[in-house]
C-alpha cells in the first residue's frame, strides 16, 4: 500500500510491461541455448590467414564486410552533417572562463602525444587491437582537449571538409578499382603476401583502407565535437 502511494501508476505499469517482456524473452532464450556450430567466422579465420593480416577483426571489418564499413562511414558522415546543420549556424560562443595556466600548457603538451597515439593505433590496426575507428576517435579526443582548454582554438572548417572529402572519395574509388581489376568491389588488388605478415606494409589494401577510415572518422568526430562545444550559449 505504501508502494502504491510513493510510485505513480505509470512507473508501475512500465515496470510490469518491461518485466513481462524481458521474462518472456529470457525464458525463450534459456530454453534453447545455441549449440556450438560452424559459424561464418571460423571459415573467415582460415581465409584470413591468406591476407597477411594478423588481426582477424580488421580483415573482417575492412575486407569481408567492407561494405558495412562503407555504410558506417556514410552514417557518421550524415550524422556529422546533420549535427552541423542543427547547431552550426548559431553564433559561435566564446568560453568565458579563462582556463588556468596548467590546463593551458598541459593541453598543449598532451595534444601531440594523443595525436601520435591515435596515429599509432590507426596504422597498426591490422597487427594489433585497434584501427581506424578507435584511432580516429582518439585524435578527435585530442582536438576536444584543445577546444576545452584554449578558448579561441578552432579547427578550420574547410580543413575538416577537405579531409573527409578526400577520405570518402578515396574509399569508394579504391572499391571501384578493385571492381575493375579483380571484378570484386573492394577487392584486394595490392600484393598481400603471407610471409610479410607482421610488417607495417603487409596486407595489401587493408591497412590503407583502415587509415582512410581513420582519417574519415577523425575528421567527422572532430566536426561533431566542435559543433557541440562551440554552439551558441545564449539560451
Amino acid at each position, binding site marked *: 500500500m505504501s508502494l502504491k502511494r510513493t510510485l505513480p501508476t505509470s512507473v508501475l505499469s512500465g515496470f510490469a510491461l518491461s518485466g513481462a517482456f524481458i521474462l518472456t524473452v529470457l525464458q*525463450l532464450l534459456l530454453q534453447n541455448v545455441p549449440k556450438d556450430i560452424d559459424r561464418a567466422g571460423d571459415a573467415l579465420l582460415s581465409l584470413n590467414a591468406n591476407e597477411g593480416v594478423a588481426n582477424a577483426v580488421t580483415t573482417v571489418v575492412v575486407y569481408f564486410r*567492407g561494405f558495412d564499413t562503407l555504410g558506417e562511414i*556514410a552514417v557518421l558522415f550524415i550524422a556529422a552533417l546533420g549535427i552541423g546543420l542543427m547547431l552550426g549556424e548559431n553564433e559561435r560562443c566564446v568560453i568565458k572562463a579563462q582556463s588556468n595556466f596548467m590546463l593551458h600548457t598541459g593541453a598543449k603538451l598532451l595534444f601531440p602525444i594523443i595525436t601520435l597515439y591515435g596515429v599509432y593505433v590507426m596504422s597498426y590496426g591490422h597487427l594489433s587491437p585497434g584501427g581506424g575507428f578507435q584511432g580516429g576517435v582518439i585524435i578527435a579526443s585530442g582536438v576536444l582537449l584543445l577546444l576545452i582548454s584554449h578558448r579561441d582554438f578552432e579547427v578550420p572548417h574547410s580543413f575538416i*571538409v577537405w579531409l573527409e572529402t578526400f*577520405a570518402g*572519395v578515396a574509399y*569508394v574509388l579504391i572499391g571501384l578499382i578493385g571492381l575493375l581489376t579483380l*571484378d570484386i*568491389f573492394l577487392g584486394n588488388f595490392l600484393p598481400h603476401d603471407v610471409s610479410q605478415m607482421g610488417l607495417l606494409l603487409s596486407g595489401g589494401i587493408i591497412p590503407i583502407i583502415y587509415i582512410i577510415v581513420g582519417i574519415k572518422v577523425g575528421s567527422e568526430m572532430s566536426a561533431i565535437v566542435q559543433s557541440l562545444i562551440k554552439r551558441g550559449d545564449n539560451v
Partner: protein
Amino acid sequence: MSSILFIALPLLFGFATPILNKFGKNAVVYISTYMQAFLLYLAFTLLSGNSSHIEIISIAPPLGISFVLNSISLLFVTLFTFMMTLFSLYYLSHRKTKPYKNETKFFILLNMLLAASIGLVLSSDIFNIYVFFEIAGISAYILSSYEKTPSALEAGLKYLITGAVASLFLVFAIVLIYMNLGSLNLALIAQGFETLAFNTKLLISVLLLIGFGFKVEIFPLNFWVVDVYEGSSTLVNSLFSSIVVKAYLFVFFHIVYLFLPSGEFSVFLIYLGALSMLVAEIAGLRQTNLKRLFAYSSLGQVALIFTAFAMQNVDAIQAALFIVIAHSIAKFIIFLALTNIEKEYKSMDITRLKELNSPFLRAVMLIAMLSLLGIPLFAGFIGKFLVLKSLAVSGFIGVLVLIIIASLLESVYYFKLAGFMFSKCEKGEVLKIDFVQKLVFIILSFSLLLIGLVPFFFSDFLHESATFMIDNTSYILNLVGGR
C-alpha cells in the same frame, strides 16, 4: 557490375560534394540530377534488355556480402530512381522561388537516401540491411527536421527515437540469428531457419516484426507517422511516402518469404494489415489539415499493400506491386501539388482548397485521388481489384469486408476534398506553375493513366517479378550455388 553502381554512385556523390562545389554555385544541384537521370537510364536499359535479368555481385566472394539484382529488385530500383529524378527536376524549379538553406547538404541527404533505399532492396546480407536501414533512417530524420521550426524538430525527434528503438529490436534479431545459425547471408539463414526450435523461431520473428513494424507503419507501432508527416516539409513528405516506406516494405516481406516460406504467420499478418487500414481510415475522417489527412491516407494504402504482400501467393504479390507503383506515383503528385498550394496560400487547412484557382493543379490532383481511390480506368483500380479477388479466392471474406469498409471511408474524405476543390467559391489569384513543374506533373499523371488504361501491358512483367520474389529455391540456389 551495374548493381554496385546504383549504390556506389550516390555515395560517391555524397562524399565528393565539396569538390563539386568548386565548379560553381549550382553545380551540385545539376550534377546530382544528371547522375540520378543516368541511374534511371541504366535501370531502364536493364529492364528493357533481358527480362529475366539476374546479377549477383559479391564482396569477398565466398562469405562476404552479395547483392542480388533480379527483376523484382530491378523494379524497385527503377521506381526509386524514377521518383528521385523527378523530385530533383521539380526541385530545380522550386529552388528559384523558395530554395532550402544549404542546398548542398540537402542534396547529399537526398542521394544518401537514394543509395540506402536501393541498398535495402539489393542487399542479401542481414547485417548489411541493418546498416542501410540506419542510413535511410538517419537521412530521413535530418530531412524531416531540415527546416528547424519547432514542429519540424519535434517530428525529427519523434522519428529518431522510434527509429532508434526499432533498430534496437532489429539488432537483437540479427544477434539471435547469428548465434543460432552462424551466418548472416539471407540464403544461408533461409536454409537453416526451418531447423530451428520453435521457440527461437518465434522469438526471432517477433523481434523482426517489432523492428520492421515501426518502419512499415503497421497498426500499434505507427503512432509517430502522422506527426512526422505534419511536421516535415511537404516536399520531403513525397519522398517518405513514395520511396522510404516502399523500401522497408519490400525488405520486410523479402525476409518473411525467405524465412517463413510456408506462411506460418501469414493469417496474423493479413488481419494486422486489414486492421491497420481500417484504423487509419477511421482516424483520417475527421482531419482538417491536408498533410495529416494525406498521411492517414498513406497509412491506409501502406496497410493495404501490407495485407496483399502478407497473403504470400503470386497473384496477391502481383496486385501488391501494382498498388506500390500506383500509390507511389499518386502520393508523389499529391504532395508536390500540396507544395505548390502551400507556397501560395501559406496554410494547409482543408478549406483552403476552395480558393485554389488553377485548373491544371485541380486536374492532376483529381487524377491522383481517383487513382488512390481505385476508380476504374485509373492505376489504383487494377491493384485493388486484384487484391480483393485474391482475398476472395483464398477465402478471407472477413478481411475482404474490412478492406471494402475502409475503402468506402477513404472515399468519403476524398469526395469531400474534391467537393472543396470544385466548389463555386470566389477564387484567389491564378496559381502560376513553372514549366518544369508542369512537365513533372504531366509525366506522373500520364504514367498513372497509362497503367490504368493498359494494365495488361505491365501485368506479365509484374507477374514474373512476383514469382521471383516468392521463389525461394532459385534465390538460394543463385546465392549459395547449391551448397
